[in-house]
């Protein structure tokens, strides 16, 4: 399986090549990959149905306990099936939708890479592997939202989606690290068995908050819901696949996956059910305001994601059954509806539902598919959506916390969703025929297969819910329920959920009937909505840019001196802090030098100071030379003959070089003000003092055993040399010397190049030489 996914990534990379050979048929051929994986998954069904889990082990980074182990239980199986089946259908759909698109190969590369990342995400057993796949889905999603990269709106939306989900990803990473520490394992299957240990751990609260931020941003929960509707800038297959059926459910998947490990506490239940319920109502409410069919569907996806989160928050067995049913129902009908939206967009040239009407005569097949899918969205019998909604209302009624509030929000969500479903299916296909920018026509077969199949499944599962029993049971088992016994039926008799459904039907019909009026009324709320979370995001971004500009102006202003002063001040602060405050300073200041040694030291100081105050360049170079030769003397006096020889040689060469070049250099000029000089003096003085103190305290500190003892002892036996320094240079640390030779060679090449270009300057003119200078 791991190999299949890796092969998928390779295949994604090869997509342009395939496109070169196969042309427009490429997506169809590519669809074989997810179809094949789906077939393999189907073959594993007996194992899963028996309640077992499939563990495919593969060590990845053994030293760090990171494995690419795949774990297939009911939950992972359901998600993997959705990803592969809908993925295959989407690829078929894409073949028609993006026919003739120049960038089709690029699209295929990214969407197949996404598909594989998403599969990896739901199958991974290791937290690190899961996180890597998680981030991969964020990145591929970014590339897909921004597919039409020449459109500034698409670029902005893509960036927004990326920032929100990757920002949440950072929190998730922190959460995973804490989770692994608290549970003492990186494996999800192990962690899920250590629920009690995790819940009682000190890190539980911060860990849960971090993980939930990651899940909420990915799954567009309130207050992070705003990025999802904006992500509709992507081509429709992407919206159908990533932003309704799969990727946005990654957060839901994660919460479901960790439900046995982290669930069951008051914090988990309260947060999830309230955030979920709030998201549900917000999504449904915001959906009604829009006439763009993709935005309508996007907000209703937000609503569905909220519902799923809420059901996980309730956490009873009934709620988990409802969770699985609703999840499946939503993936089926929403995928179908998005593809229908793409068909409508293609056929009419507009996405505005209020501009469409009476299309059922021109596009009868599309109309049938849209109606079935919408009925499921609306939660009407006998479709799977009805089952999901009934179970949802039932578990909300049975919830033992915040029941009233959740019921209110759930009911609001339900009747508004009904209105959305009506708008999406009735508006474009029924009523009076309206003129659209393009003459509508029935969709080609390739575009109809996907939605038709998904809608048919909605209907089939709704009519015969018993077929789902085993799947739901296996999935609920993965969610941590003990020995679930699931019997789904369409008809539960006349009970409270049914009555609520009827009431929501009436209210929803009313909203649909007066939709235009409702929209106009709601327009009054626009100023309030504009101050919602998206405004917060924009202010955050603007603030970030402002701070970046401000600190660049301060820190990176192009003055070498500023960089130097900043670096030195930081160094002074950190080292000074460690030296003076963290460790008491112990200095044993004793001068046991001979007179001639003091004279040499004095010469050095005098040379250095003279070099600073001289106004003549020649005098300054001479003063530095005096200092350099004094250093050579120190080397002579203190047992370093090799150093003395080298220093003498280099010092001589330096003075020769400087004297040669000196008169081609500008004269010293006094450019700074006295105030600046005092400031520099203060910085330089404190740095010098710090170095002195540092050295004195090191001299007094405890000595570690010398590593050079080995070299002293082995220089002759191993290196066959009597000069230990030489043996070190050419034998023990020969690589250092090699590096040194490289540096010198590079410097020589650079010097040579700059001197050569000097000649070219006179031949080819000023500009050419100036341009080349940057490369030299």
């Amino acid at each position: 399986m791991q190999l299949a996914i890796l092969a998928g990534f390779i295949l994604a990379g090869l997509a342009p090549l395939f496109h070169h050979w196969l042309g427009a048929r490429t997506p169809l051929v590519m669809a074989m990959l997810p179809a094949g994986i789906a077939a393999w998954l189907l073959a594993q069904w007996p194992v899963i149905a028996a309640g077992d889990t499939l563990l495919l082990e593969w060590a990845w980074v053994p030293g760090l306990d990171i494995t690419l182990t795949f774990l297939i239980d009911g939950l992972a199986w359901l998600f993997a099936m959705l990803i592969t089946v809908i993925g295959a259908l989407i690829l078929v759909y894409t073949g028609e939708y993006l026919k003739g698109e120049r960038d089709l190969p690029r699209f295929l590369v990214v969407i197949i890479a996404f598909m594989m990342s998403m599969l990896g995400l739901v199958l991974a057993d290791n937290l690190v592997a899961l996180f890597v796949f998680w981030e991969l889905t964020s990145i591929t999603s970014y590339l897909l939202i921004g597919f039409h990269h020449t459109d500034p709106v698409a670029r902005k939306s893509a960036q927004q989606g990326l920032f929100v989900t990757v920002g949440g990803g950072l929190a998730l990473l922190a959460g995973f690290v804490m989770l692994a520490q608290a549970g003492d394992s990186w494996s999800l299957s192990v962690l899920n068995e250590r629920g009690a240990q995790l819940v009682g751990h000190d890190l539980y609260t911060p860990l849960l908050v971090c993980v939930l931020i990651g899940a909420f941003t990915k799954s567009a929960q309130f207050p992070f819901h705003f990025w999802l509707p904006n992500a509709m800038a992507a081509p429709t297959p992407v919206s159908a696949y990533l932003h309704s059926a799969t990727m946005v459910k990654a957060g839901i998947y994660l919460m479901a996956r960790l439900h046995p490990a982290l669930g069951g506490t008051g914090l988990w239940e309260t947060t999830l059910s309230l955030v979920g319920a709030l998201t549900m109502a917000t999504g449904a409410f915001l959906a009604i305001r829009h006439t763009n069919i993709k935005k309508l569907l996007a907000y209703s996806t937000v609503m569905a994601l909220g519902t799923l989160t809420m059901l996980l928050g309730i956490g009873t067995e009934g709620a988990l059954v409802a969770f699985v049913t609703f999840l499946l129902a939503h993936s089926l009908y929403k995928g179908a509806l998005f593809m229908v939206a793409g068909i409508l967009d293609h056929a009419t040239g507009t996405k505005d539902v209020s501009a469409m009407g009476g299309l059922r005569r021109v596009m009868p097949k599309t109309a049938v598919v849209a109606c079935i899918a919408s009925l499921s969205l609306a939660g009407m019998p006998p479709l799977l959506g009805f089952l999901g909604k009934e179970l949802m209302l039932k578990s909300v009624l049975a919830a033992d916390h915040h029941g009233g509030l959740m019921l209110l929000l759930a009911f609001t969500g339900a009747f508004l969703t009904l209105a959305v479903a009506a708008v999406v299916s009735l508006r474009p296909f029924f009523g009076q025929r309206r003129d659209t920018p393009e003459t509508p026509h029935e969709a080609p077969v390739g575009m109809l297969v996907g939605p038709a199949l998904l809608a048919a499944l909605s209907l089939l599962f709704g009519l015969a819910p018993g077929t789902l029993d085993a799947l739901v049971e296996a999935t609920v088992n993965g969610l941590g329920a003990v020995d679930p016994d699931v019997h789904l039926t369409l008809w539960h008799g006349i009970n409270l959920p049914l009555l609520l459904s009827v009431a929501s039907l009436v209210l929803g019909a009313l909203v649909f009937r007066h939709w235009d009026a409702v929209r106009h009324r709601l327009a009054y709320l626009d100023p309030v909505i504009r101050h919602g979370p998206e405004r917060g995001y924009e202010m955050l971004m603007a603030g970030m840019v402002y701070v970046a500009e401000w600190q660049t102006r301060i820190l990176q202003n192009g003055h070498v001196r500023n960089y130097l002063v900043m670096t030195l001040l930081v160094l002074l602060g950190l080292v000074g802090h460690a030296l003076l405050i963290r460790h008491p300073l112990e200095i044993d200041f004793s001068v046991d030098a001979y007179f001639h040694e003091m004279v040499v030291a004095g010469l050095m100081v005098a040379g250095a100071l003279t070099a600073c105050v001289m106004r003549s360049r020649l005098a300054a170079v001479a003063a530095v030379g005096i200092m350099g030769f004094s250093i050579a003397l120190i080397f002579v006096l203190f047992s370093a003959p090799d150093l003395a020889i080298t220093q003498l040689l280099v010092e001589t060469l330096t003075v020769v070089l400087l004297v040669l070049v000196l008169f081609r250099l500008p004269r010293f000029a006094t450019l700074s003000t006295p105030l600046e000089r005092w400031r520099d003096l203060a910085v330089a003085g404190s740095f010098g003092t710090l170095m002195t103190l540092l050295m004195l305290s090191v001299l007094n500190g405890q000595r570690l055993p010398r590593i050079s003892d080995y070299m002293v002892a082995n220089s002759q036996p191993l290196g066959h040399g009597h000069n230990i320094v030489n043996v070190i240079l050419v034998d023990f640390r020969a690589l250092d010397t090699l590096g040194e030779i490289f540096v010198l060679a590079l410097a020589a090449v650079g010097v040579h190049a700059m001197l050569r270009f000097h000649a070219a300057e006179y031949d080819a003119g000023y500009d050419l030489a100036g341009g080349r200078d940057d490369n030299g």
Partner: protein
Amino acid sequence: MESLMAVTIGVLFATAIYMMLRRSIVKLVIGLMLLSNAANLLIFSMAGMVRGAPPLVPEGLSAPPDVVADPLPQALVLTAIVIAFGVLSFAVVLVRRAWEVVRADDLDRMKDTDT
């Protein structure tokens, strides 16, 4: 002796930094020279300074009979001296080129890429 060297090295570092903070570009080069010398001296004297015991193995022996000066910092400093020379000669030629091309010796006037 190390205490005396500590003070000397402190002065060397201070002068090096002061020169590197000047706006005149030639002074920057002088600062660079002072800095590399100060750093070399720091490494050398940090290991402990020993008089009259160079790290040599006498003929016919396999190891020095007495305590000798630590050879490792000497090897490091030797490398550093040579590299410092390479850097310095590169810097000097670069400064010369810059002066020829832009005729500016004030670092403040060279802060943009298109000076």
